[in-house]
């Protein structure tokens, strides 16, 4: 319990107002332990980015709204934080890296300056000490020729290098949590492997807890300790990574696992989950997955939203099949 670094309770986030309002994150709860890598899986539009942006307070505040719930970090509720309070935390205690390294760095500032910035703001480093620290960090993320890169501009670097710079920037102040929002999606497979390796290495050495968002199950297998599956803004399954691949229970998770190409027998057509993700304003009543679920078995599936049921130690599923005590499967 005291190893929990982030605790999200019943968080709901909406966009828009009146009849245009949609709930992007619906009653999500999870606890995140220090030093672990938690993977959040889901397709586009399932709410994973919204979830992480709300932790950082980076949602556009005119159109978004935290309806409910709390984000507990270090004894504080981030959902109630002011911009000033967030400015203290961002880059310092919680950092984030994004999906598009090509556009995530300011084109008119040198790399050195951009990495030095959080150190200047949060650690009050200046002058030579600052520059040395930046070079050290560049080395830690395995960037060759750090002195040269220090004086370069983003457009002089490749995508993989830029992502390393992003990681360097994010980890410069040794935050407790790093949120990685699909950091390798836009990169080449070989570069992807390097970045994942780097992240694991940093998690190992510095014990930074990582919240890893992805839609790619192979990445999950590679990197994560624990996993949370999101669908339509709700958590549908939560367990550790071994459980996920060996013993997944939710029909959506099973569908995701089955549709991986390597799971398919040669000569047979690739499996996919029937139907498409409904838009947030068009969600079916009852279980969100009900209109695509092959294991739908009772009326409750279409009328009531299933809560998360405990199957075994730390393995939760939101499916009526696994209602407490029963196992209809």
């Amino acid at each position, binding site marked *: 319990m005291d190893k929990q670094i982030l605790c999200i309770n019943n968080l709901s986030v909406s966009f828009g107002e009146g009849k245009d309002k949609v709930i992007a994150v619906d009653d999500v709860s999870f606890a995140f332990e220090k030093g672990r890598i938690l993977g959040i899986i889901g397709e586009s539009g399932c709410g994973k980015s919204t979830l992480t942006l709300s932790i950082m307070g980076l949602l556009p505040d005119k159109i978004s709204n935290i309806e409910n719930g709390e984000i507990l970090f270090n004894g504080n509720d981030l959902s109630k934080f002011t911009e000033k309070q967030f400015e203290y935390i961002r880059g310092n205690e919680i950092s984030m890296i994004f999906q598009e390294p090509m556009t995530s*760095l*300011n084109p008119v500032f040198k790399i050195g300056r951009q990495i030095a910035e959080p150190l200047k703001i949060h650690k009050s480093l200046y002058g030579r000490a600052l520059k040395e620290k930046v070079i050290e960090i560049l080395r830690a993320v395995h960037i060759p020729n750090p002195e040269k890169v220090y004086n370069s501009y983003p457009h002089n670097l490749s995508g993989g290098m830029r992502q390393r710079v992003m990681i360097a920037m994010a980890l410069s102040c040794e935050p407790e949590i790093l949120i990685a929002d699909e950091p390798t999606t836009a990169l080449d497979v070989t570069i992807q492997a390097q970045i994942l390796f780097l992240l694991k290495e940093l998690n190992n050495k510095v014990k930074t807890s990582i919240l890893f968002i992805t839609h790619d199950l192979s990445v999950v297998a590679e990197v994560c300790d624990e996993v949370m599956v999101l669908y339509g803004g709700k958590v549908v399954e939560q367990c550790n990574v071994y459980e996920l691949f060996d013993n997944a229970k939710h029909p959506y998770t099973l569908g995701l696992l089955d549709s991986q190409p390597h799971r398919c027998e040669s000569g047979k057509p690739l499996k996919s989950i029937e139907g498409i993700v409904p838009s947030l304003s068009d969600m079916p009543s009852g279980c969100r997955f009900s209109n695509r679920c092959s294991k739908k078995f009772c009326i409750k599936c279409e009328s009531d939203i299933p809560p998360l049921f405990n199957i075994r130690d730390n393995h939760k599923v939101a499916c009526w099949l696994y209602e407490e005590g029963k196992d209809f499967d």
Partner: protein
Amino acid sequence: MIVLQKYVFRRLIQTIPVLIGISIIVFILVKLQPGDPFSSMMDPNLSQEMKEKMLEQLGYNDPILIQYFKWLMQALQGNLGYSIQFKQPVLNVIGSRLGNTVILSICSMILSILIAIPCGVISATKQFTKTDYIVTVFAFIGLSIPSFFFGMILIKVFSVNLGWLPISGMVTTGVNLTGLSFVIDVAKHMLLPMIVLALMNTASLMRYTRSDMIEILKTDYIRTARSKGVRKRNVIYQHALKNELLTLITVVTMQIPSLLSGALLTETIFVWPGIGRLNYNAVISRDYPLIMGIVMMVAIISLFTNLLADILYAAVDKRIEFD
């Protein structure tokens, strides 16, 4: 950097046909003027025989194509004819007034920038609030008032009714001021024309800054800056603004030709002795050589300003683009 040089070279090559085009158009205008353009190409103090010799040299009896080339040759050597009003070479007359327009234009441009950029930035950061609304409406008003009307209202209020500022001219006549008092005198005379000249450019610069800043504030790299814990003020005034200023350089450069156009009306109303007023007077007195000379001069200045703007844009863009 090599790519940039190639681009500059290509653009320079492209200016050649335009220069030729400008010269052709001016030549056509010269030919269209009533009377004989050739006599005005010569110093009026020359003797009659000299004049007749020169006429031959200038192509009086030649077919039109030769006339064009001879005229072009003269122009390239700096002979744009002799002003009928002033009885001096056109280039000299223009030269004596050009400086006044330049001073007025530069001060006007500085005023524009000082007002437009902060307003545009504030408007963008407070999008959809009352402040934004007011700034936007002001910008629209600035774009919609005819500059000469605005000028006359200012004259009426500040010069005639209140008597705070002089009505016209560049210096107070009859007094011979030097040093600081001279500068102050000129400044007093320049204040109103400067404001009027700046009006339209300020308004459009304000709107441009606003829309550009709004786009910049939506970018990924601004999100990154925020995620690092950079204070909101610094996100806007360091991270966003530097990107904005780089593109503004091009926009401001491109406004220079419109300053020359606007100067015509402004200088006329305020009797400011620059090439705008010179142009107007020349038209009124049908001083054709002077008119054509000014047209040519202004066109060439515009050409090189546009060229400069394009090159600056490419130079800035190189940083934003990745090869």
